[in-house]
């Protein structure tokens, strides 16, 4: 029987990077899931929280809880948005809302972690989306997925199973400098941080710089277009999605 999941595509992917969302749906379906897309969804509220507006963030947190409460599993192609739900919702909401948020958070997963840790679908997906071993990939451990959710191996497992050659950067866990509104507020610090990440990725000789967060990737791609340095930043889902037969 197919597992039913609700996709929280995130506002960033919806508006700026839809290819990662399309790939997420195709991968979930290839892994045997039935994917629902609740139309009322919008944003997890993180931009407001990180700008110091927790009340505005709470409005969107309650909205998220209402929209996704009916589903048994919520999957999102962003470690950062999943971390927002897991770590912050119960802290910015009160009473009954905080309890409801905790319950939804317990069923909210980052995409690669859901595919690997929950569905154990890496080998199945490898058959459906084999990657050329000549393709070399380096993984950036996006901060909130890594440090809040403890994600480290799932993206690598999917890529490796699919046949890609993984090469590690010197500091894969170092922040890329995105940081939400930090990227816009302190561009003068954020851009050199992107340079550090792109330089490390370039030093690996990888064809692609991947991550499980479109925020990091948009920031890195924007910097790369300016400087011409480093491999192409691409979402893990998108890289695998391109190979789906």
């Amino acid at each position: 029987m197919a597992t039913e999941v609700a996709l929280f595509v995130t506002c960033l992917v919806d508006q700026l990077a839809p290819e990662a969302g399309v790939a997420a749906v195709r991968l979930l379906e290839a892994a045997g899931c039935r994917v629902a897309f609740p139309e009322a969804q919008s944003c997890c509220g993180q931009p407001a929280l990180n700008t110091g507006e927790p009340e505005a963030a709470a409005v969107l947190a309650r909205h998220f809880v209402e929209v996704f409460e009916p589903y048994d599993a919520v999957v999102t192609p962003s470690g950062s948005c999943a971390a927002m739900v897991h770590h912050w919702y119960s802290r910015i909401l009160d009473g009954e809302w905080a309890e409801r948020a905790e319950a939804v958070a317990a069923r909210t997963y980052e995409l690669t972690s859901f595919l690997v840790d929950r569905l154990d679908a890496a080998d199945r997906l490898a058959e459906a989306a084999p990657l050329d071993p000549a393709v070399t990939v380096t993984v950036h451990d996006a901060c909130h997925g890594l440090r809040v959710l403890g994600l480290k191996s799932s993206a690598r497992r999917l890529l490796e199973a699919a046949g890609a050659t993984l090469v590690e950067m010197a500091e894969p866990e170092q922040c890329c400098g995105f940081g939400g509104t930090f990227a816009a507020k302190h561009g003068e610090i954020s851009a050199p941080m992107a340079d550090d990440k792109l330089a490390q990725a370039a030093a690996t000789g990888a064809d692609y710089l991947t991550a499980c967060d479109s925020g990091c990737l948009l920031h890195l791609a924007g910097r790369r277009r300016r400087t011409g340095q480093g491999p192409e930043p691409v979402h893990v889902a998108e890289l695998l999605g391109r190979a789906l037969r």
Partner: protein
Amino acid sequence: MSVRPAEAAARLSLADRARRAIGDTDLQTALAKVTAALGAEGTAARTDPDMIEKRRRGAAIRREVLADLDGWLDRLQARLESIGVTVHRAAGPDEARRIVLDIARAEGVRLAVKSKSMATEEVHLNAALEADGVEVVETDLGEYIIQLAREMPSHIIAPAVHKTVPQVARLFTEAAGRELPSERGALCAFARERLRSKFLAADMGISGANFVTVDTGTIVLVTNEGNGRMCTSLPRVHVAVMPVEKVLPRFEDLGVLLPLLTRTATGQRLSTYVSMITGPRRPGEIDGPERLHVVFLDHNRRSLLGTPYEEMLCCVRCGACLNVCPVYRRIGGHAYDAVYSGPMGAVLTPLLSGGTEGRDLPDASSLCGACSEACPVGIPLADLLVRLRADLRTPGPAVPPAPPWPGHGPDGGAAPGSGPAPASGEPVGVAGDAPGRPSDSGPAARAARRLGFSAWARLWASPAGYRLSNAAVRRLGRLAPPAVVRRTPLVKGWGEGRDIPLPATRSFRQRLADRQKDGW
């Protein structure tokens, strides 16, 4: 002569200070080297099973202290007094300076030697003593270097980390009055010789305190140069300035916290020197101070108790959060324009100052959480930075001040009429609102931001609002002249270093809807 934090960079915004630091190639070289080295030590310390257990126990001991801080302070005071130590309580920097000045005057002090102490940096003690005619000599090598350079520490455990060897050679040459080679050994030899004469001639030794144990009344100092021991055993008077959270209940707690501090700070199992001072010189002893004073320094620390910021009082000043912080690693300590830098400084500065300093510092973080992960006592630094961004929206302190100790004035000031005016006033004014500082944190901008986010959240909590606003942005983005788009708030900052992403031709939703007809 120490330089007040505000002097060097008062006219520059955080962004401008950051730009200047990023453009400084000497600084970038020094930062890359030291943060990589110290950061690797910290990471190694995190994965050692013994250290994992020490982190757990250390965090528990620190929280045990906070659960009854005033009680532990009372018990510590009683213990210290029972072994002949004079205890003073300073509500804030003004009172702390006055207390030390009074002691120096009463003792006829002309020369004071100092062991490295962030607490005395925090209260700007050197300038006050110098204004009163006391020669003050920093004896930690790094502190000595920056004292000669008239700068602030740029790292809490490696204060001169931003200096290169040739820069130090120039400073020492000037101090020596003769040419010194740009070579580490010769420069250290000069400092050793110069400082030795100061140790022997000093009337007063001034230190901080890494820990003070309640059951024994022992002041513990961690150093690698032995200068702390010289400062506290040779001069006839020793004054230790102890921020209130440095209390440890039991001497045996040092077995956990000392190695936790040193392993995390520098990778050492224990520092080269650990000085333990229990009371002044006793009859029959041949060294040690004749009189020993301990100054409990509050400076708004007690106001944090019972708030989420209380966690910050667990800090042992190891510097791990600086070494792993990608922002610190890029901009260094001076760009924070505060005594404490890095993530811990960005949290501590606005809290200790009661909101008069460092209000923009919580923004100097990508919230990556490397600091929280590195902290040996589990302070959720990134979470506290998020909270501060909200709690500093309105003017004034992030938390209400605590009731002062009996007989003490509020918020850092001495009780009225209780002593001479301080040699120099506290910096006043809200950093974000300082003149000449282009800032988006003025009252009007703050109100606009709040309204904007509130309206945005309500709009996006409705499916129609989300759809229509995105359609509007898409249309405006296409129609508006690029020069106008580039000036839009947030887009402007993004565009400083990156190309601006264009909305996708078809959003994910549209593609999903179209899929029903003819596939992706």
